[in-house]
């Protein structure tokens, strides 16, 4: 009897190993076959490149960076793999990146405004912008204000009018992150109060709106698009400077009289001490990738339009956002 079991177990193990090889070979492990016409030699001697993402696997941000990692592998001829290090609003991942050797083998995801949390006094971040070097930005994520489909508000005006003495309620996923930044500016423009209910993650924000616990929520376009299209959520405004191709009928907040603009920028960063030639190669590669149709299509599936910025330009955008954020008083929201 024992021999039979041993064989059985060995067979399963073998099959799994083979599957693993196949899976590994196709996915995270060996995706680094050079397909580009001139595979830029990566000026750092890394067996593989680690891209740290400060969010859990499967989330919108994580997916965007997995798409990027895939393209980077192709372009650089090196295996780029995503490692999730969620928690602390990104600080865990940032600290992990900064404590790795600055040899160009460890990169990090950068999204603003979420990474601007280090500016707040109560967050003892232990790092500043000076610790980072940016390869550049590759995408911009629109934020959409949504209400439940059965809500009486058909437009932003309706919502604003219903504000009354108690103001409005909104679901947010952190007391001082991207949502809060929008809500604070929104409340300012409205001249009335917005009470935030802090929930765990974007799925719970949608649940809060659907269940009628709050008046509205601000969500990433990619995340709410399916719910909008299936008729459960209604988008009242988009917080970008211009309308989105994915939601052409949704006016911007600006158009409707609320002069607030907010978007999430997706970028690639690394520790500041990484050699400049590594950073430049990454910058050029990002520029190439953002032009590729396949990349644009993949990100379109996630509801994120591509937009390239050099490291320098991204840094400027960072400073501009930081200025806006530092002027905000978050206590009014909670």
């Amino acid at each position: 009897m024992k021999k039979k079991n041993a064989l059985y177990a060995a067979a399963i193990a073998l099959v799994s190993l083979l599957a693993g090889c196949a899976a590994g070979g196709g996915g995270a492990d060996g995706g680094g076959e050079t397909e580009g016409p001139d595979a830029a030699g990566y000026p750092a001697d890394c067996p593989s490149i680690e891209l740290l993402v400060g969010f859990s696997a499967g989330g919108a941000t994580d997916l965007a960076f997995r798409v990027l990692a895939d393209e980077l592998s192709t372009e650089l001829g090196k295996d780029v793999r995503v490692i999730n290090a969620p928690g602390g609003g990104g600080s865990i991942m940032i600290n992990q990146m900064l404590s790795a050797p600055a040899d160009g083998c460890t990169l990090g995801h950068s999204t603003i405004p979420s990474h601007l949390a280090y500016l707040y006094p109560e967050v003892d971040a232990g790092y500043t912008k000076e610790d980072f070097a940016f390869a550049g930005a590759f995408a911009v994520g629109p934020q959409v204000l949504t209400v439940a489909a059965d809500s009486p508000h058909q437009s932003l005006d309706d919502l604003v009018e219903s504000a009354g003495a108690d103001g409005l309620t909104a679901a947010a996923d952190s007391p001082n992150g991207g949502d809060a930044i929008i809500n604070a500016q929104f409340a300012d423009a409205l001249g009335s109060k917005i009470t935030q209910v802090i929930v765990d993650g974007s799925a719970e924000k949608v649940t809060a709106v659907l269940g009628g616990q709050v008046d509205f929520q601000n969500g990433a376009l990619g995340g709410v698009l399916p719910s909008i299209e299936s008729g459960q959520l209604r988008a009242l405004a988009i917080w970008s400077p211009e309308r989105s191709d994915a939601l052409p009928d949704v006016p911007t907040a600006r158009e409707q009289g609320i002069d607030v603009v907010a978007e999430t920028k997706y970028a690639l960063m690394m520790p500041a001490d990484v050699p400049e030639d590594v950073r430049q190669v990454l910058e050029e590669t990002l520029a190439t990738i953002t032009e590729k149709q396949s990349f644009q299509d993949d990100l379109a599936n996630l509801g994120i339009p591509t937009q390239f910025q050099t490291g320098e330009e991204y840094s400027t955008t960072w400073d501009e956002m930081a200025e806006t954020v530092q002027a905000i008083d978050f206590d009014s929201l909670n």
Partner: protein
Amino acid sequence: MIRGRRLLSQHGAERLTACILALIAAGVLAESLRLELSRGVQPGPGFFPALVAGILLVLSSLWAVQGARMPASGDSLGLLKDATFPEPGDQEGSTTPEELTDRSVNARQAKILAFAVLWALVPILLLTAIGFTLTMTVYVSGLLLIVGRTSRVWTVPLTFVGTVLVGIGARVVGIYLPEPTDYLTLLGL
């Protein structure tokens, strides 16, 4: 039964632990006050911890006091008994006989514990420094040799081989374990 030298008596140990818990509760309470119990009408970050710490303070005091009285006057407050349902035939204590009465820690046991804990520092300190393969070989070999008393000749090499195989298996499945030089990728995995 092996009779070892008792380091700490049964009741003494319980009382000591209860006091430690009470101290921890007090500490948490102090820190919670610093964190603000309330912000306006809303509970602040310190509210919940303070509430829980307060309960712990009460509970650990009760435990310390009750431990002091055991077994002389028995449990007059009825707190040692299960206050839910009367359970006929329910035995006091856990499953095996030797644990029922022995809450002491003798010298031999303390030595084993100390070794296990200290040896655990091997992976904690070295895992990210010298990598998975070497660290785990050292760690597991050490345990096998000292705790398991296995053969001195074969243990280390076999453990090394086993560790390498596990490392390969993990990589194949997609789990990336730290290594100083990524020899598995160099091997083409």
